[in-house]
């Protein structure tokens, strides 16, 4: 997946640069940089760096495939890379299983939550999201899931709508 993310970034950077070039003015009539100058600079840098990055990730994955060695699951890749650069071994937190499927499920639930928020109102959308989430990942506790799924949205709705007077979508039932 790493190389596909890198490839996605390269495609986006090409699209960004191409759209910028086709819609923006690069230099004014007096020869000064115009609205497209800075985006072009960024776009070019992005295209070059994303292409090199993709090549690196591709090679890394190919090498892993050839050697058959699967790297350990890293808990905090960014901080661990910084520690490596300074010669500090911070990999004691690594290992363990990864849960890609769960990430997909949670993300889809979040998308569903945002999609239904306007038509059915924030409160009901929150309740439905919580029910879906808790009955997927915490099935054993039916009663507490039900109570929690109403209590937390109720509290947050009250806090934002009543206390902070925020504008939240309202359901056809008036809440």
């Amino acid at each position, binding site marked *: *997946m*790493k190389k596909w993310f*890198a490839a996605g970034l390269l495609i986006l*950077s090409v699209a960004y640069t191409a759209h*910028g070039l086709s819609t923006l003015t690069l230099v*004014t009539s007096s*020869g*000064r940089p*115009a*609205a497209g*100058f800075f*985006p072009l600079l*960024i776009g070019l*840098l*992005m295209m070059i*760096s*994303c292409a090199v*990055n993709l090549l690196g990730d591709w090679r890394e994955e190919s090498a892993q495939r050839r050697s058959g060695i699967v790297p350990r699951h890293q*808990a*905090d*890749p*960014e*901080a661990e*890379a*910084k*520690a*490596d*650069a300074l010669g*500090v*071994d*911070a990999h004691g*937190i690594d290992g*363990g299983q*990864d*849960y890609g499927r*769960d990430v997909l499920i*949670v*993300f889809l639930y*979040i*998308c569903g*939550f*945002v999609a239904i*928020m306007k038509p059915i109102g*924030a409160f009901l959308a929150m309740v439905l*999201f*919580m029910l879906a*989430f*808790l009955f997927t*990942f*915490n099935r054993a506790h039916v009663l507490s899931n039900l109570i*929690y799924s109403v209590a*937390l*949205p109720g509290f*947050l709705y009250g806090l*934002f709508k009543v206390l*902070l*007077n*925020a*504008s*939240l979508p309202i359901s056809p039932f008036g809440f």
Partner: protein
Amino acid sequence: MLADIASNLSLGLSVAASPEGFLFLVIGAFLGMIVGLFPGFGPAAGIAVLIPMTFGLQPTIAIIMLAGIYYGSMYGGTITSILINTPGESATVASTIDGYPLAQKGRAGPALVMQAIASFFGGTVGVVLITALAPSLANFAASFGPSEYFLIIAVGLLMLTTMMGDNKFKGFISALIGFAIGTVGVDVMSGQQRFTFGSPELIGGVYFVAVAIGLFGIGELLHCVYNGQHRQPTKRLRISFRDKEFWPSKEDYYESRWTFWRGSGIGFLAGVLPGSGATLGSIIGYSVEKKVAKDPEKFGKGEMRGLVAPEAANNAASAGAMVPLLSLGIPGSGATAVLLGAFLMWGLQPGPLLIVNDPEFVWGLIASMYLGNMILIAMSIFAIPLFVKFLDVPYVNVVPVIVLLCIIGAFAINASIIETWILVVSGLIGFAMKRYGYSPAATVLALVLGSMAEETFLQSYIISQGTMNLFWERPVSLVLFIVLLAIVVLPIVLALLVRSKSAREGLSNKV
């Protein structure tokens, strides 16, 4: 000068110690401890998610509360590092190296107390140095022109991205993504629309809070789900400060007496330097402590100095990062970038003039940090049993709280469903960035500073009539330009030297 500082601080204390200021400071510190406690949910995410909850407050009180969350999370983040080998946030990764072995040896109590004392020490040293440095730096920065500002931004971002070990390139790309997002909207110089695709909602640009909440809040949450936090059984841990074994020994204090100072000094410097931040500060603090120790073999096996150094450093760094934010208006880390966003939301423009125009705010914030550190050390020691109880809450019940706060909070800011979708997409990108070694902090920093970078770059270009010599003609610019070149060139030169050395060695071995 001391009289000025005293009078400024008393002005600040009148704000921070007012009933309202104190109440929200305690709430911020408490929330910060909890934010730090939940793995993967760092200060940047905590501040971003809780920004919408400060809408009803006065700007100064709101920022005092958000700053309390910021430095409070540094205290809370270590509790899980020590007890369950799971860092609450990136800046406490280094604390697991010796913190967890200490707990395994049955010294969890002393480790928790020493981390609280180290955090207090580092945090207080940091605030004392802010008090001394911020006004002087602001005075100095008042003479800065666009070229100096552009170079500071460039140095900060380059430092943030080049300090990432193997992931330098990914850090650089992360910053470019932030700049690219920052170009959406109306160009300030010409008024031309860029990348808006005809949408009126994008004319004002991509709203920074939605991106920050997405990258840090949803992104980190998805990363925690990926790590399996939501499937972890509840950890029933019990700690009581009434236990005899709870308190550190005299040897612990004696052996760490210089570590407190070293860690604080290193951390503060790391915080002040744009781009390095608390994570790097804590790792450097640990690394230096191990190098200067006469018995480095003890490190990694439950050495108290190995815990004290990163703890003093990350708290001093979180204070240090406020110096460039308050005096230059330039954040040095992801969390301070989110704080800058909150400043701007409240109509406060950080920079050299902030101290002159709004002394009540600046000194109120600084004074609140003194008080906050005192509140936090008391909470960290005497309320540890309470905070440990929070770990009884299964992460599966924490996930919906974070999701609802992110989504409802992002929607509530401008009642915009497009911004809410931007948050969701940013969340997915943030997860992938964290997973594949990119830097969401660099993206947010570049997004926040993007328009400033473009504006100052173009101003410098126009003033120098296209020659760009403004970047090396003025003394401060010249120094910054040399630093910038050093950051870019030095790693390449070093890599070439290492390569040629190893080639020579290979050749001599063959002979």
